[in-house]
């Protein structure tokens, strides 16, 4: 199952082969979750169709699209495609084109995304969810491994932690369910204590949570590509764990192409690939990433009539909070109600806010990532 990396995810034949291989190892629990998840999604689609055709329905007002950004909504892609192909307009220049008025609802999706996903049938979104759930399971299953008996026994020889950094909720997992007896010199490893979560069940829990989550179900039913973004990012992390720098760079560049934020994963993923030469890995990963995204942007440039207008319309929209629709965040309201005089200040502040955390977290946790060649040190630190 681990061999089925995301390296070949974009080639359909190879993808089917890889998922066939994964399917052999899928446990019964995941099959049940997949069937339940697909059924729920079909019910959601039927519910939307019925409620949209019924004029008197209380659910006539679509509520769930509130949670779907335009850059990942298929209906928005279809609008962009209509403007481009039917009207013969550059969908990214409409907001700034004085001939068409002052409205700013120009296209906020990348050209390749519009081309690839504007005509995707509803079944395709369910399929993306299924692939994402399987990828989540495979990724989690590659991490979940029990320590050997010898490793567990070595905990006896390790000193106790100070109280401030000692874990007090070890009973949550079965692998961390140790006792901490300060009165004795050596720690005692408990026999099977009652634990909330079994470590071996975590992959199934994660994929099942994804499959039965109402937000995932309705996002799929309303033709949102959020699951595709999650699939890309999980596949990139999985590829990094497998040590495949090329696939990691490729998947990360596609994710960054759609939404600018995921490029920050370059730093930790270069650490994940190998601990022997992280600088070299970061360099190679950056090269693959830059080359891939340059190709993607180049294709988009050609597709968009040799114009870079899409960068301002997509990345600029992401950064500047222009044309924001109401969403779960707080920035749309801040920019609506805030004084226009200070808008630039807040734009700069909020646009860089998610990136402020990247370097400090990397620097703080980098040393340990280098030291911990193996996650088995988890055993040592569970004292």
């Amino acid at each position, binding site marked *: 199952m681990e061999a089925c990396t995301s390296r070949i995810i974009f080639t359909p034949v190879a993808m089917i082969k890889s998922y066939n291989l994964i399917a052999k190892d899928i446990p019964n629990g995941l099959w049940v979750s997949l069937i339940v998840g697909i059924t729920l999604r079909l019910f959601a689609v039927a519910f939307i169709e019925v409620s949209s055709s019924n004029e008197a329905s209380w659910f006539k007002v679509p509520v769930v699209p509130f949670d779907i950004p335009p850059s990942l909504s298929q209906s928005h892609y279809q609008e962009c495609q209509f403007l481009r192909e039917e009207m013969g307009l550059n969908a990214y220049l409409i907001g700034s084109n004085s001939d068409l008025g002052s409205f700013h609802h120009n296209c906020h999706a990348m050209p390749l995304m519009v081309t690839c996903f504007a005509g995707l049938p509803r079944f395709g979104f369910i399929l993306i969810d299924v692939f994402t759930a399987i990828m989540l399971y495979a990724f989690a299953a590659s991490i979940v491994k029990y320590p050997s008996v010898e490793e567990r026994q070595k905990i006896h020889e390790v000193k106790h932690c100070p109280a401030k950094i000692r874990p007090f909720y070890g009973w949550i997992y079965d692998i961390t369910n140790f006792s901490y007896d300060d009165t004795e010199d050596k720690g005692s490893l408990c026999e099977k204590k009652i634990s909330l979560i079994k470590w071996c069940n975590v992959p199934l829990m994660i994929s099942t949570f994804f499959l039965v989550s109402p937000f995932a179900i309705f996002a799929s039913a309303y033709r949102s590509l959020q699951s595709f973004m999650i699939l890309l990012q999980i596949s990139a992390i999985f590829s990094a764990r497998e040590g495949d720098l090329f696939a990691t760079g490729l998947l990360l560049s596609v994710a960054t192409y759609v939404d600018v934020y995921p490029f920050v994963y370059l730093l930790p993923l270069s650490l994940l690939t190998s601990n022997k030469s992280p600088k070299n890995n970061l360099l190679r990963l950056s090269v693959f990433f830059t080359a891939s995204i340059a190709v993607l942007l180049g294709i988009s440039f050609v597709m968009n009539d040799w114009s870079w207008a899409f960068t301002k319309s997509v990345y600029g929209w992401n950064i500047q909070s222009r044309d924001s629709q109401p969403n779960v965040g707080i920035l749309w309201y801040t920019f609506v109600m805030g004084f226009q005089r200070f808008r630039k200040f807040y734009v700069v502040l909020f646009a860089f806010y998610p990136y402020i955390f990247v370097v400090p977290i990397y620097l703080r946790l980098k040393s*340990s990532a280098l030291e911990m060649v193996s996650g088995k040190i988890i055993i040592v630190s569970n*004292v």
Partner: protein
Amino acid sequence: MNRTDFAFNQVTLYAIFGTVFKCHPTIHEVLSFMSLMLLSPHILIRMRPFSFISLISLCVPIMTLFVDYHMWMCGGGNANYVYFMGVATMVFVSTIPIDFLTASIKHLKAATLGSSTSINANDIISSSNE
């Protein structure tokens, strides 16, 4: 766990911070990436109770958020209700990765302490590789 570690914790943190603080956050992405925290048991067991309380409490502002948005669209509410429920959601969501980061640093200290004791972490690694 063969190569998991703080690099993976960084990925989880970046994913959650990114989805929370970007201009167009969605609950679907936030919850999906938050589920990856289950893969870091050594961190999770060091987190504080208020994270769990925040997680349980999340359902209230999220449900109210959708109801308020529906009321707003139907003419019975206004944007302020939606905004304040968004604020409550973000406050609850933000506390969890912040506590996860704190717990990561606690684990880092514990790991440093463990490797400085009589038993060296490298011994375990080398013995397990054999």
